[in-house]
């Protein structure tokens, strides 16, 4: 585990931001931190980045108690991006890298590599003010990863990127993961969760309400519903199965039905009853999207 968060409590004067939060964040994986606005994600991230300290509980970083020496092994891209507007791109990145413990020479050589990789060499002497929003985002991403952190914390990394740059960023994130970087990924965008994350945790009202590996979580939320496209009419009552919906399918000649299996009924049992009656064209289990899971869990826990 790169991070082991144990019973962390954070109180502010008017509310509790984190209420006994415990999470295990595995090494070399992408971990999605999900939750509605105000759930406590930023509070948790600020404790991990040591901007604030927890009131109770503790955090282990790679097995050691989290302390200021770990600052240099963490890279943090906050949701609200920001750079010194009146500073040149190169100088600024060198400064930020030095704050993360790199020497000046080391910073320059690594940054030069990044600038060549991302094909942005001509930005080096430009003032941040003169860059477009997207260029500033790229610059800031480099500042987050240049010191090759063991743990990378990305808070809504795709906001403000156009699709082309978002793809480039996604490739960079996956490349970092392949090189062994552990990534904590906080987002609202469920499609990027499906695409990138290995595990997730959902926080609502200051508490962890759901956690697990992506596929395992999805399986947990399977509703045992099957979508069947078929030709012909259903004439006989089906045993152990509820019909949720039935409608005409695209070309009017076929129908689409959604069936829910009752407790301890297998898909084969449904199929066995359908085959004598209709021509089955498609039979597939409905797997819930993370969007659905998110909405369902948040509503349940509210």
């Amino acid at each position, binding site marked *: 585990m790169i991070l082991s968060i144990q019973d962390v409590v954070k109180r502010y004067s008017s509310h509790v931001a984190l209420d006994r939060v415990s999470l295990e964040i595995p090494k070399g994986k992408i971990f999605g931190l999900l939750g509605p606005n105000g759930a406590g994600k930023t509070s948790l991230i600020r404790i991990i980045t040591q901007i604030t*300290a927890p009131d109770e509980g503790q955090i282990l970083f790679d097995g050691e108690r989290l302390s200021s020496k770990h*600052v240099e092994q963490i890279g943090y891209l906050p949701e609200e991006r920001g750079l*010194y507007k009146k500073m040149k791109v190169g100088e600024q990145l060198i400064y930020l890298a030095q*704050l993360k413990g790199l020497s000046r020479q080391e910073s320059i050589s690594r940054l030069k590599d990044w600038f060549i990789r991302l094909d942005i060499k001509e930005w080096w002497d430009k003032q941040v003010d003169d860059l477009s929003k997207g260029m500033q985002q790229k610059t800031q991403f480099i500042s987050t990863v240049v010191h090759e952190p063991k743990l990378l914390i990305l808070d809504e990394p795709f906001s403000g990127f156009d699709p082309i740059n978002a793809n480039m960023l996604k490739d960079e994130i996956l490349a970092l993961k392949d090189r062994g970087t552990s990534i904590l990924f906080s987002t609202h965008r469920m499609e990027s969760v499906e695409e990138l994350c290995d595990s997730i945790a959902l926080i609502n009202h200051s508490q962890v309400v759901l956690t697990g590996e992506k596929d395992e979580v999805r399986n947990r939320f399977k509703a045992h519903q099957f979508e069947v496209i078929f030709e012909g009419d259903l004439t006989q009552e089906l045993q152990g199965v509820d019909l949720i919906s039935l409608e005409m399918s695209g070309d009017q000649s076929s129908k689409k039905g959604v069936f829910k299996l009752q407790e301890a009924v297998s898909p084969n049992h449904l199929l066995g009853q359908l085959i004598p009656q209709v021509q089955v064209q498609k039979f597939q289990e409905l797997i819930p999207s993370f969007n659905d899971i998110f909405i369902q869990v948040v509503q349940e826990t509210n």
Partner: protein
Amino acid sequence: MNKIFLVIKREYLTRVSKKSFWIASLVAPLLLTAIYAVPIWLATRDKEVKQVAIWDGSGLFEQKDLADKEIAFQLVTGDVANIKKTFDKQGYDAFATIPADILKNPQGLKIYSEKNLSLSLKSDIERMVQNKVREILLRNAGISTLKYKETQVDISSETITVSKHGAETTSSSGGAMILAAILGFLLYLSLLLYGSQVMNGVIEEKSSRIIEVIISSIKPYQLMLGKILGVGMVGLTQFLLWIVLTVGLSTATSKFYQAPSRMATVANTSNSEELKKSVAKVESSTQPMEELNKVIESTNIPLILGSFFFYFLFGYLLYSSLFAAIGSAVESAAEAQQFTFPVMIPIILAFILAQFTMQDPDSNIAFWASIIPFTSPINMMVRLPYGVPTWEIVLSMALLVGGFLACSWLSSRIYRVGILMYGKKMTWKEISKWVFYKN
């Protein structure tokens, strides 16, 4: 520690590499040199000789009495009404009529001119007539001109400070006041100037949102301290540039003026009389500088400079930490204004108190103003040239250091909370709560 140094370096270099820094560093010495050089230039400049016609109704004046370096007087005779109409066509700048009873009626002198008469020409004519009239009156009273000149003594005093141990130092209280005022004013300006630079730097980091990135790398107090020290070093650099440039420029200026006039005196004997006068004028106009030099020689320069450095440093540290706390609580410079007022008040108050301190450096007001941390930097600097007992200086310095520690503790408590607060309307009540927040 290493990271604080990085912050200091960034704060220092970004400011020193700005054009505005160099403009401010150059313009102030140029202005000071101009204040010093322009009067000298005006004095040495060749003056246009004015032509004045004198109509003498008293018969006391002769053409040989009228020799003057700056004005060519010419006795004229004829009809006054006629001359009044024609004097400017004859090339005169002014026309003066001396009444027959000038000895009894000193107000009877009339001066006519086409354009408005310049004050200096008016007084020059009056002086000429007055000298002649006085001479005649003295002679009539039986006093010789020589005797009269002997009565014109000029009393001036030398002030001497006697210490408790009996050591005497000559001081010039006028000069001490000038030195005190300059130092006090410099401190006042720099506290306001560099304090608000710190505040604006904090606001910049907060409003550009870079703050969160930075404080995930270093502790908030390290960032605050680094910024304060960096800006403080910019201030010291600027002072150093001001001093070096001003001394350099004014030395060069006085060399430039002295050299040609000396050479001219030697080379051109026909005009030597006139030149000696202009050289004398240069010397008289540099007299305040000599006076100041005398003060500088009579005061303890290492003590003054050392104290200036100390009071600038700690006064600046105290106030700029408060400015940093204010900057952290707001999101824009406009919003900051209402909060800066309580910090500006003690600075302005200290400056006002300094006027009293200057007039009476041993009064109770002066004592307390130079002891209490918030007003002591300016007021102690003002008092120092007059001599201050060592224990008072030590107490004042100790309290200032203590005040700085207290203020920076308070400020860093506010700062660490403030920099992460957005979208909240700030009040003093809210800010005072932050002091007691846990980390």
